[in-house]
């Protein structure tokens, strides 16, 4: 078979090419140590940054007598100019009488210990580290004659302030959401978990962008295996840029041949905090307000954080509703097609006559009609996303009018179809997680095709395939459909139903550390005072 040979040929070529090509990621120069002379240093920096206008070089010298030249280099815009002016430049310039204090000391040490009045300072010996610091907003202080450079943390610049998150809006609950700065985000989580066990491991991922990525977890509650696995996967990433947490998600997820997400992402710090307390791990990426949470199970996508702030009955009924909605959004059009094309006996006679009367005027078979309507709706939806706010309402009117009324009256589609499509679309919007809603959209089309070819039998087989696929997924070793399948009875309290808070005594056993699973004391069920009810009263009490 010729194709066999082509396969192996291609493989051989590919490996050859790999050997010949250089890894474009590594640039050798930067591993060299820093040049000793100030002028050389500055010219190197200028050359490396291409004389970028926002790289500011401020020469200063401290100490009259010694005349040690220094330079302060920072990038405007991503650094806090006020801090630089006050604590660096001012300190250096004001310090004129250094030789009096300690004449023999290394100017670099003097700088480090007595002049730079900022916290978080690092010493760099190589260009690599220096540039990393410079490009992340820290200020570099160079001393003439030293092969070392000092960097001080002066990160700042214009950023979005903490606002209400755009997605996952709740009625009850905190209204702060993550911003693009990773420092702010971590601080929002810290404020909620004021415990030294909240560990933050930061690494820079992305060879060109050098994005800060932090791994956050609560030591002792999170399972060690999971933390190690996440860490090793993060370290394994080799890519030039990480612009959003979505990049990371796609690079380290368990299974890419699926439409369902194995990571949960959120903009809300209370969700992150809640998940951390259950033993999960969070990945935060600088530059995006969306944090990732792993490991995830399927049922999480039907839970909203408000469930935990509301009382049990409300939460439970809402969860049931959401699952029902999900099923409707997948199966509704397919069922309609299957019912009217293969299994007309299922439909009550009166309804069948009504539908038949409607379909008399429509030239297309049910499947094509459904397809037209669904595609039209998807187009409308995409248009609604792109439209600027002002025109957005026009889209809804146009959509309703054109599709709804005119198409029906022109006899292109039947009213029943419009109703089905509308219900499906609304059900889709009601799904709490956007990622799952998108999956539902894609799967809905597959189901429609299967229903048009094989009727209900096809739908059932489709559900079977879907179930097999979902139950075979794992998210960092945790089966995707836990706690329903495999059945973990202790986890059932917080899955499809939500038993009251005082009943959720343990953390999910598959995710949290085995030793640290109890999170609540005994007898937390609120018990009102016995003073209510029919209790004999002390007559003397009454007199008083």
């Amino acid at each position, binding site marked *: 078979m010729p194709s066999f040979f082509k396969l192996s040929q291609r493989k051989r070529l590919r490996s050859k090419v790999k050997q010949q090509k250089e890894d474009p990621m590594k640039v050798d120069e930067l591993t060299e140590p820093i040049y000793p002379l100030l002028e050389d240093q500055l010219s190197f920096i200028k050359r490396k940054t291409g004389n970028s206008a926002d790289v500011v070089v401020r020469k200063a010298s401290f100490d009259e007598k010694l005349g040690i030249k220094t330079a302060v280099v920072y990038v405007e815009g991503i650094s806090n100019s006020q801090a630089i002016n006050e604590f660096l430049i001012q300190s250096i310039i004001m310090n004129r009488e250094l030789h009096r204090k300690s004449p023999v000391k290394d100017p670099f040490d003097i700088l480090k210990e007595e002049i730079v009045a900022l916290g978080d300072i690092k010493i760099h010996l190589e260009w690599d580290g220096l540039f990393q610091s410079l490009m992340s907003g820290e200020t570099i202080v160079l001393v003439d004659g030293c092969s070392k450079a000092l960097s001080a943390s002066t990160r700042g610049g214009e950023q979005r302030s903490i606002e209400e998150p755009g997605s996952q809006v709740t009625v009850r609950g905190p209204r702060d959401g993550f911003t693009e700065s990773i420092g702010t985000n971590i601080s929002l989580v810290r404020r909620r978990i004021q415990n030294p066990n909240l560990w933050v491991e930061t690494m820079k991922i992305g060879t060109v962008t050098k994005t800060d990525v932090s791994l956050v977890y609560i030591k002792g509650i999170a399972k060690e295996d999971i933390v190690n696995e996440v860490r090793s996967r993060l370290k394994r990433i080799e890519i030039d840029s990480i612009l959003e947490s979505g990049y990371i998600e796609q690079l380290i997820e368990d299974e890419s041949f699926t439409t369902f997400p194995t990571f949960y992402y959120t903009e809300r710090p209370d969700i992150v905090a809640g998940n951390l307390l259950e033993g999960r791990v969070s990945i935060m990426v600088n530059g995006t307000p969306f944090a990732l949470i792993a490991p995830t199970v399927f049922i999480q996508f039907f839970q909203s954080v408000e469930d935990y702030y509301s009382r049990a009955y409300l939460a439970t009924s809402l969860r049931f509703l959401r699952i029902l909605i999900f099923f409707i959004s997948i199966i509704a059009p397919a069922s309609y097609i299957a019912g009217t094309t*293969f*299994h007309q*006996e*299922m439909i*009550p006679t*009166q*309804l069948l006559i009504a539908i038949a009367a409607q379909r008399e005027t429509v030239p297309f078979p049910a499947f094509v009609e459904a397809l037209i309507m669904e595609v039209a709706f998807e187009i409308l939806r995409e248009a609604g996303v792109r439209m600027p706010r002002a025109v957005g309402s026009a889209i809804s009117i146009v959509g309703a009018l054109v599709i709804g009324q005119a198409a029906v009256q022109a006899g292109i589609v039947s009213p029943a179809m419009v109703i089905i499509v509308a219900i499906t679309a609304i059900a889709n919007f009601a799904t709490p997680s956007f990622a799952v809603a998108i999956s539902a959209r894609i799967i809905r089309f597959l189901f429609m095709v299967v229903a048009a070819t*094989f*009727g*209900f*039998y*096809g739908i*059932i*087989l489709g559900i*079977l*395939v879907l*179930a*097999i696929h979902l*139950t*075979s997924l794992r998210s960092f070793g945790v*089966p995707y*459909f836990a706690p*329903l*399948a*495999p*059945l973990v009875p202790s986890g059932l309290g917080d899955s499809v139903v939500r038993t009251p808070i005082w009943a959720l005594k343990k953390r999910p056993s598959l995710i949290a550390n085995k030793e640290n699973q109890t999170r609540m004391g005994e007898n937390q069920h609120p018990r009102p005072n016995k003073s209510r009810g029919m209790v004999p009263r002390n007559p003397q009490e009454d007199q008083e």
Partner: protein
Amino acid sequence: MEKAKIGAYQLFVLILLFELGSAVLVPIAIEAKRDAWLAILLGMVGGILLFFVYYRLYRFYPKLVLTEYMEKLVGKILGKILSFGYILFFAYSAARVLRDFGEMLLTYAYVNTPLFIVNTLLILVIIYAIQKGIEVLARTGELFFILLYLLAITGFLLLIFSGLFDLKQLKPFLEDGWGVVLKVVASQTLYVPFGEAIVFAMIFPYLKDSKKIKIAGVSGILLSGINLALVMAINISVLGIDLASRSQFPLLSTVQSIQIAEFLERLDVFFMVSMVIGIFFKVSLYFYAAVSATTILFKIKEPSKLVYPMGLAILFMSITIANSYSEHIKEGLVVTTRFLHPFFLVVIPVILLGIAYLKNWGKKRKSQNGAKNTSVSQKG
């Protein structure tokens, strides 16, 4: 053998789905007429006994499946021949059930579609599932178990509300005497579906907690037996014995009689859903047993590659084993239940168990003798 672990609850679910699989849809034990439910219950008792046979064999060789310890007990050559026989038996059973399913679907829902298409679709899904492994199958089983029971309970409630039950149809009790009932038990219900639990002898080693197998298995068979008896009793009460015995698929006819409030009619689609689910698991488990046994016998390194070809083989077998539905049924009654089932399901395991006991007893003797010789006393 793959690296998989199943929990006891999953085993229970698998046993239940397997037993209910196709048995709930065909008129089993109908020769016992109005006492069919009794025949089923007795068959269930027999099934539990057979289960203990398989379980005891497992306890002798906890890490091996049926075809593996067969070699140990009867010698390599005979063991290999028997294993091959079992492979054929499992594959043939899978093909039979698949054929049953295809015929059912074609009879009332998709009359004009060729059998090949319907069977192919199901086999493709089963191949997909088996490739993922027994763990995935077990988890899917847990999900569908809930769905199936919801459907069953809804159906039952609907039947009650339609007022279709006529318990008097079950009288007279034991009209033809115990003879007929026992005959039916010995020739039918013992094997189908209770004896078919032998497939689980290929699955026991995967259990996480081997102590719980007994209770999972017994409760699975118990529950499925009660369910089947109940279903047959319902069929007879609603349809009357004549219709029930003349129907090819009595449960379908029962479901079709439901008529409530003028719009809940013709609910055969629910029937179709439960049928697909039940048969899916039955064929999957037989198929899995066949693949497993083949892998062991021929020492194949990558079982997942074996799944496709075996699947196709079973598909073709299901089409070629009979020309018409009646031939298929007759073959089942004459060939399968009279020869194949007693041989593979009862005779061989009992013999194996006997040999295992003898060997063990022999071992104990030896160890006791050895202990006597060396003057160290050991608590045997």
